[in-house]
């Protein structure tokens, strides 16, 4: 066959065309930025001219690397934050797996009460922005160290919280742990639910005790999922920015992300790029480990069977106690923070919870000069309105782009299964998942700040936010779609193509309607993630493109906590509301997309 003919035949298949396009685009949007950032760590930047003597902008230098890794300031600037990052990530994993795993086990394997309420509410912290709990923590436990008013806890009990309890490592770990507990719950619960109950029953019939079954059967089988949860939570916790920024800054507790924000926003972008690069490398290492574990232990994780008729463990006398305990703690984590935001956003003088101190000025006030520089209430504040519109617009556009490209990615990868190109594109589409959001933002900042070929400088444009968001959330959509396509036999489409039904119609009338629920999760996940995303966009927004999350961060930095609380409530309302709406209308749910059932 001639080369030309072969090419002609190859591109006759729509999935090959899509794959090739995706390959080119994804190389440009993921690999090229990687290279840019590596080069950036070796070049002199405008703001660094003063410090690197006798240099010109853009010339080669080892200054950044030596300063970050081998100088008198590296301890404070790099090694300590790195160490803190690792401690925080490990602690987060421990908390998340312990809580999430326990709840997953209770729900799938015992006769605990209120299961449906708990399983619905328990996902909430993951849907809500991660700093929600951090702000709630501050609302409750802040102490006068940073000035201003004490938290609710101190007001109610008169006990002043210790510094270690209010700020820094401990609360960061707790808050991140609670935030990622639902993630562990979904992954571990999914395995427990899919695991053939016969495996446990077989052991039971051989007179093994429950504890022994747990130790010798259940845990070994769940272990790959546990490890995989561990690694995913570790890499997410490592790249968390908002929580350490909220809870760590008052006591100068720095992690890599907060340090990166400082350096990139300050005078040392070169340092920041190095940290970004190191975080990406750690991320890649962790996720390739994860892939190896899943790959090797595949036989475990794909065990399926009917566990619906498993004999649930009777909690007997403890049943009510355990049920209530779990229910109340779930409510404490999910609902109470929201109430605290509501309360805080109505209080004029922070810390004074007298009824006379309540006011709606932060919501609907027109603004008075003595409070917060005359900033009007958030519902009549034009700049917040702009932020809200931008946020929604961004989330919608990003979810449309990421969701649609995700469907096409999943479609073409599963159609061309086994080919080299398909596996390359598969990896490219997953690559953004490995990159810490802040680092990803930094890369795009570095790459698109200047003109690149025919692409004009895009810094400060809305389009840049859309691109960065779409690429970052593509993995969510493409995972959901690959999963859906794998379940769909190829014959379903062939049955149509043999009758002469064109490709577009096959997609729109057959494939998409059949896997509607999964595809909608592919749109929903990017939407929600985008609505609550801070670290990805924080380096890229300008006043004209500001979004709610970045405004919240700024208000909080200025200490105007009432505005921050009110905005947070607004975001939570939007995120949870849209999730519930989509869930109700289409039956698609967020946990479907992350691997639950």
């Amino acid at each position: 066959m001639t080369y030309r003919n072969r090419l002609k035949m190859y591109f006759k298949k729509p999935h090959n065309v899509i794959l090739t396009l995706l390959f080119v685009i994804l190389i440009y949007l993921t690999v090229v930025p990687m290279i840019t950032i590596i080069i950036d760590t070796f070049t002199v930047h405008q703001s660094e001219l003063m410090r690197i003597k006798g240099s010109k902008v853009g010339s080669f230098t080892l200054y950044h690397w030596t300063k970050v890794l081998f100088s008198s300031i590296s301890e404070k600037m790099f090694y300590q934050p790195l160490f803190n990052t690792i401690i925080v990530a490990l602690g987060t994993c421990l908390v998340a797996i312990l809580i999430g795993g326990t709840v997953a086990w209770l729900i799938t394997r015992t006769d605990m009460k209120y299961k449906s309420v708990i399983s619905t509410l328990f996902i909430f912290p993951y849907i809500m922005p991660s700093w929600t709990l951090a702000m709630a923590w501050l609302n409750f436990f802040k102490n006068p160290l940073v000035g201003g008013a004490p938290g609710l806890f101190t007001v109610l009990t008169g006990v002043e919280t210790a510094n270690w309890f209010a700020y820094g490592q401990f609360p960061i770990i707790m808050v991140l742990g609670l935030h990622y507990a639902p993630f562990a719950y979904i992954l571990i619960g999914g395995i427990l639910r899919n695991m053939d109950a016969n495996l446990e029953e077989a052991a039971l019939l051989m007179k093994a005790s429950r504890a022994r079954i747990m130790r010798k059967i259940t845990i070994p089988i769940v272990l790959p999922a546990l490890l995989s949860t561990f690694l995913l939570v570790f890499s997410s916790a490592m790249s968390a920015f908002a929580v350490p920024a909220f809870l760590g800054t008052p006591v100068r507790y720095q992690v890599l992300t907060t340090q990166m924000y400082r350096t990139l926003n300050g005078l040392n972008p070169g340092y920041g790029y190095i940290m970004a690069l190191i975080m990406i490398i750690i991320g890649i290492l962790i996720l390739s480990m994860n892939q190896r574990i899943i790959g090797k232990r595949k036989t475990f994780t794909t065990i399926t069977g009917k566990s619906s008729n498993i004999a649930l463990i009777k909690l007997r006398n403890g049943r009510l106690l355990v049920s209530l305990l779990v229910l109340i703690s779930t409510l404490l984590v999910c609902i109470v923070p929201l109430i605290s935001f509501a309360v805080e956003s109505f209080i004029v003088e922070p810390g004074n919870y007298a009824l006379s101190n309540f006011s709606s000025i932060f919501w609907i006030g027109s603004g008075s000069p003595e409070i917060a520089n005359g900033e009007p209430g958030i519902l009549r504040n034009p700049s917040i309105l702009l932020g809200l519109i931008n946020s929604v617009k961004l989330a919608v556009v990003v979810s449309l782009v990421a969701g649609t490209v995700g469907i096409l990615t999943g479609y073409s990868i599963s159609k061309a299964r086994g080919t080299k190109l398909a596996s390359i594109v598969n990896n490219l589409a997953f690559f953004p998942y490995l990159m810490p959001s802040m680092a990803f933002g930094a890369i795009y900042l570095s790459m698109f700040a200047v003109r690149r070929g025919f692409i004009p400088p895009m810094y400060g444009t809305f389009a840049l936010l859309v691109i960065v968001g779409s690429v970052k959330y593509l993995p969510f959509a493409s995972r959901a779609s690959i999963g859906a396509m794998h379940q769909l036999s190829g014959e379903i489409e062939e049955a149509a193509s043999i009758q002469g039904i064109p490709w577009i119609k096959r997609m729109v009338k057959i494939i998409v309607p059949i896997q509607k629920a999964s595809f909608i999760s592919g749109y929903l996940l990017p939407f929600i993630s985008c609505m609550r995303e801070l670290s990805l966009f924080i380096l890229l927004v300008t006043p004209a493109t500001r979004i709610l999350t970045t405004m919240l961060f700024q208000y909080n930095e200025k200490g105007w906590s009432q505005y921050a609380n009110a905005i947070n409530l607004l975001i939570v309302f939007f995120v949870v509301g849209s999730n519930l709406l989509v869930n109700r209308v289409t039956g698609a749910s967020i946990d479907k997309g992350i691997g639950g059932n």
Partner: protein
Amino acid sequence: MPEIRLENITKRFGKSVAVDNLTMTINDGEFISLLGPSGCGKTTTLRMIAGLETPTEGEIYIDNVCVFSSQKGIDISPDKRNVGFLFQNYALWPHMTVYKNISFGLENMKWDKEKIHERVIELVKMLKIEEYIERYPSELSGGQQQRVAIARTLSTGPKILFMDEPLSNLDAKLRMEMRTELKRLHLETKSTFVYVTHDQLEAMTLSTKICLLKEGLLQQYQPPLEVYRNPANFFVADFVGSPNINIVEMIGNIVNVDDVKLTNPSLNLIFTPTSKVVSISENQELLLGIRPEDIIIGEEGSFDAEVYSTLPSGMETIVKVKINDIILTCVVFGDVDFKVGRQIKISFESSKYVLFDKQSEIQLSSGKLS
């Protein structure tokens, strides 16, 4: 009239060869079965003719029109080959009703509504599924789904129908029923059927010609009874027929000019070729194939044997007998049973025993035994 011609078709997946240099012609109106064990390339062959898979090399002609040629760079898409395809798992669209499943392809061909309606009703009547037209596939039994799939495939009136193990998901009883229907359908539609199966009984009972494949290579392409009686090689003999053909390893020597003296520690026989002249070297290793129904069990006979086991099923009884160290499977028709351990006599009275060369496994001749 459509005639399908494959010329030197080869399909490679990476390094492995799925179909190896296959050349065959399927005449108009035939019912061809592509038969072979799993992984022999039969489904790939079918999909290549239908246009769902692209061959690596070779040419395919349908109705004397070249639909694929690797040299000329021709690859006509499946919908322009005027073929129908029945999938193993039916591939019904789960979100469409039975009616919609059948009409969807017609709507796409821009037929007007009334004509579509007429056609759908005609098909559901023919396949006896009128009462289910408003149901969704998940609300139908396997057999009903199969009928819907057939109706959908027939809707656009293809002259050639491809079927990929369409009955393998049905239970035994339903499968029998559908076999009859398929054969009737073949006569009614006067189309060419190409059928993929790994079930030799299905291939035997349905087809006008069997195409037996092994590891991508064509083994034999002939009518079922010919394949059964005159297998081209040991593989074919062993694959076709249930219970399996008996194979006895023998050492052969020419005696009396044409006959072959077969020796084995347990059994000595003289083979008289009837189909072709056998030429072998001294003490050549051979394989003797004896169909179970070609062994006569009785009180009289030329060889002593002992009943080893019996499997009576009413219509027939499968009896294993032991001659010294050899165990042979025989079939006795009728509701008879034998006591295990009983001494009996057997004889070989047919003229359809086959002899293979052990090394090349090629058939040398068929003939009589004495």
